[in-house]
């Protein structure tokens, strides 16, 4: 029974004697994480409306932290209650799955967003304007940059506290995305977390032009790709006559059965299936940032406010890969032999493309963007394994990677000069001399990206490649290895820059952050090292969460 089917029954009932309307049956407890976050988001809007400006910042911050923490607790509770393994099932009348992967990913997303909130709330990095602390978001985004309105807004000490509820909306969408169990929910969730992100991208306090440009690009391309996804959904619906994963999977696996000849043209028409599947995949790959759908990544990462970039880079990837996994493992396992080779190709060009183009980057944020593309390739290698190991390895990788990314971008926010963040690589020269600690921390993140042993990056990479190798894609591993060798080159370049080059006179200064960012970075480093030295516990976690419910 699917939600839409219930309505259907309503329609048929209407033909006969009027009966009472059966309400849909929703397991609120099991959806609690999502509901808490979205509820908090709504509440946040209320706050914007009713709470006086001076106390908005703190109330919003408090609200978001509490909400996310509560949601995380709820996830833990569900997992503890066994919804991750034994009691895993499909809730909300087939719309949302509550199972291991879903919970694991939701947990990761929530943690990541929790840390992201810290970086969002940071207001010590920029010099205080007119005696008021300012964060990295525009005082009044609608105002023309440098225009009178904006100056007034700055003078008045406006701050865009809306970012917190917007963030929460995005998180809500991300929580549903990997749990979505029918294509409609998938599409809606996609939009629910994309739209807030488009807005967030446009809110940078400094370099507004870049920020707005990135928002525009992200929005247009995002909408474009979601249109493709939607069309794909339509075709799949046409193929299977339903949009529930289980339903489609059924039709896919045991092909055409008892269909009235009237539908012979469409029903179980493989062309529909294949094209539809491909288009849906494309939509997801776009979010993942896989070549050739990666074009938005560097521009958006560079233009967006760095806290937002960090949040996007970490959380979006987690959510998107979650959804991708579910689609591939639940909807399309029947046609594995069709999409695996294609995905191999995608994975390879993604790994190589990301690594190679990154070599010649000169902006740290763009560099990290390309590295995230390369990493998307590595993760895809695990996705393609189509085995329980594959799933759990991807889950682990996502967890490890998201923390490293958050930490790295948090560090980027610290290195500043007169024009705000000094993202020009050349300006980072000799950072290791001026402030060894920050440089060392960043070096740790870079080494983790490079997959040097004893960092989480290595554990993740090994897990993914192992899964790939066992699924018989040995040469995929070789390519992965080669591209990580290439990738090592530019990570090392940054390290050289920081430690072995003489600092420039007009070089950037490292701002002393408030406890907020410090904690964020600290958590990042700890996670990186712990997951590198003793990953077993988390591997087990991911391992237990490796089964999808159908």
């Amino acid at each position, binding site marked *: 029974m699917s939600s839409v089917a219930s309505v259907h029954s309503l329609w048929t009932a209407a033909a006969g004697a009027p009966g009472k309307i059966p309400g849909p049956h929703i397991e609120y407890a099991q959806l609690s994480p999502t509901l808490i976050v979205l509820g908090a988001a709504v509440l946040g809007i209320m706050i914007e409306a009713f709470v006086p400006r001076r106390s908005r910042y703190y109330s919003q911050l408090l609200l978001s932290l509490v909400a996310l923490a509560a949601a995380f607790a709820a996830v833990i509770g569900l997992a503890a209650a066994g919804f991750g393994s034994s009691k895993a099932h499909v809730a909300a009348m087939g719309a949302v799955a509550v199972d291991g992967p879903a919970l694991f990913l939701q947990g990761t997303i929530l943690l990541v967003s929790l840390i992201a909130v810290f970086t969002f709330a940071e207001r010590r990095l920029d010099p205080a304007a007119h005696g008021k602390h300012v964060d990295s978001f525009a005082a009044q985004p609608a105002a023309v940059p440098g225009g009178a309105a904006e100056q007034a807004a700055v003078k008045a000490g406006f701050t865009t506290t809306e970012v917190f509820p917007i963030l929460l909306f995005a998180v809500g969408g991300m929580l549903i995305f990997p749990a979505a169990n029918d294509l409609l929910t998938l599409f809606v969730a996609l939009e629910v977390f994309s739209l807030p992100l488009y807005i967030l991208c446009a809110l940078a306090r400094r370099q507004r032009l870049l920020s707005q440009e990135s928002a525009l690009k992200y929005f247009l391309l995002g909408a474009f790709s979601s249109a493709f996804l939607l069309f794909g959904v339509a075709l799949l619906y046409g193929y299977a006559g339903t949009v529930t994963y289980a339903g489609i999977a059924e039709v896919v696996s045991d092909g055409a059965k008892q269909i009235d000849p009237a539908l012979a043209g469409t029903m179980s028409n493989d062309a529909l299936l294949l094209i539809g599947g491909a288009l849906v995949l494309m939509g997801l790959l776009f979010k993942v940032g896989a070549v050739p759908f990666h074009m938005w990544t560097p521009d958006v990462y560079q233009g967006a406010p760095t806290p937002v970039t960090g949040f996007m880079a970490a959380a979006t990837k987690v959510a998107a890969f979650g959804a991708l996994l579910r689609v591939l493992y639940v909807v399309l396992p029947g046609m594995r032999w069709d999409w695996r080779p294609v995905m191999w190709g995608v994975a390879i060009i993604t790994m190589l493309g990301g690594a190679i183009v990154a070599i010649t980057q000169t902006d740290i944020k763009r560099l990290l963007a390309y590295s995230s593309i390369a990493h998307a390739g590595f993760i895809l290698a695990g996705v393609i394994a189509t085995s329980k190991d594959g799933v759990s390895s991807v889950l682990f990788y996502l967890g490890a990677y998201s923390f490293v990314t958050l930490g790295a971008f948090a560090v980027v926010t610290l290195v500043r000069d007169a024009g705000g963040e000094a993202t020009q690589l050349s300006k980072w020269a000799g950072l290791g*001399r*001026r*402030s*060894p*600690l920050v440089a060392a921390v960043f070096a740790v993140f870079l*080494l983790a990206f*490079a997959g*040097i*042993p*004893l960092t989480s990056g*290595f*554990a993740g990479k*090994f*897990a993914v*490649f*192992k899964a790939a*190798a*066992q699924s018989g894609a*040995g040469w995929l*591993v*070789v390519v992965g*290895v*080669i591209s*990580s*060798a290439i990738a*090592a*080159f530019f990570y*090392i*370049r940054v390290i*050289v820059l920081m*430690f*072995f*080059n*003489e600092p420039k006179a007009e070089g950037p200064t490292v701002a002393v952050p408030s406890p907020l960012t410090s904690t964020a970075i600290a958590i990042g480093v700890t996670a990186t090292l712990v997951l590198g030295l*003793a*990953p*077993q516990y988390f*591997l*087990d976690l991911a*391992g237990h969460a490796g089964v999808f419910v159908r």
Partner: protein
Amino acid sequence: MSFPLLTATAVVPAIGAIATAALPAAKRTVAKWLALLFSLLTFALALVVAFRFDPTAKGPFQLTESHAWISDFGVRYELGVDGIAVALIALTALLIPFVILAGWHDADPLEEATPNRRWRPTQGFFALILAVEAMVVISFEATDVFLFYIFFEAMLIPMYFLIGGFGDRAGADGEERSADRRSQAAVKFLLYNLAGGLIMLAAVIGLYAVTADQLGTGTFSLTQIVEARAAGQLDIGTTTERLLFLGFFFAFAVKAPLWPLHTWLPGAMGESTAPVAVLITAVVDKVGTFAMLRFCLQLFPEASSWATPVILVLALISIVYGALLAVAQRDIKRLIAYASISHFGFIILGIFAMTSQGQGGATLYMVNHGISTAALMLVAGFLISRRGSRLIADYGGVQKVAPVLAGTFLIGGLATLSLPGLAPFVSEFLVLVGTFSRYPVIGVIATLGIVLAALYVLVLYQRTMTGPVKSEVSAMPDLRARELVVVAPLIALLLFLGVYPKPLTDLVNPAVEHTLSVVDKKDPKPTVQVNAVPGSGRAGHAASDQDVEAAK
């Protein structure tokens, strides 16, 4: 398992590294002494290991420790040592204190450098050295392929900072140029080795896939794999095995370094300070050759013997090529670097000769080469620090003004050309005999190496130490007490091991026998069986008499 001795041996220097790094900028001298203390502590532990180790005992590994670590990857924290490992651990632990002493002032911040309480190069220098020691030691102890791999790779990072971060201020040109030449060398070192390591990673994963496929659960335990293979449970397909072997060997050949993968070494050794250069060639590179012996051969016996001919030829090329290039060098340290390439050729030759002499010799060679190169390179370092130049042409007649320095330099050089009576001779001759007894032609060509070695060493000595005294060196002070303390023990050791290497051979032989048994190779038997009667040539003349009679 009582006290985890092996872990302790690796952990102590690690702690030392952290402690040293933690010291504030002002406490430079303290840092030095602390580092020295910890290195000596490690040496003491290494000695304990050596004495607790019983060469005659059964079983490949001793003092073993085994704990679960990452069961998902089939990885266990498995330590254990055989004779070879013990010898190399002892070597490492022995050399580090000397390296630290020799580098006593190498990392003192330049005077003109602005006082910066955050920037603590000295602490960093010694901490990094200790970190390298810890990682090297544990990779000698690891009997789990994955565990080994992790530290094999991880040790690149501290090495990289040592090379790139600290140079002798003796570049031909200004500090600025030499600084970026240095960082280039460091980057080359890192990327080259990283690439090798990543190729190996693919092979490691492949190994896991194979074991997981055939043994049910994937494992990296060397002993387990060897036993399974012996019991016939594990049968890696020929092609797979060869591919995996190549993956492993490539990494080790880069590290070792084997021609044509050697080009990172001269740069790295030339640009870094003498102690760091010693660290590279005498300690870190040994991990490569050691790993060939322990992992390549034991994990992939068939593939090893399949690849042997090619490898032998490459080793041969390394020997001659390295020596010839050493002759043509203008830079003292680069000369020593190329000499090392030649020597590594000998080591690899010995390993893949697959005879007990060859492999025993190779192992001894690792130890002896470590000591001799350390002696030569450190003295060279002292020399360079005095004159502020690495160019051979800038020296001349040093022998007259600094006889002790020259003398020690000469002894180091004589060891490098493996003069009988000094340790390297024993190992080199063993390698040659071992190779010759299976591959006569290669053995003979390799013997050319001893002539070329004499050439580059003596040319170096003549150009720097003899002849009329150059004005720049006329005021050169002789070795100081600290420097003598560094060099004298090394020389004494060279002499001792040259005259009485038995302790070492006794340590190594069983391990070598075990390796050969795993590879399933036997020493070729002599064509004539003689009843070895110790004693005078009397018998000989009886025979010769008969010959004479026959002749008539």
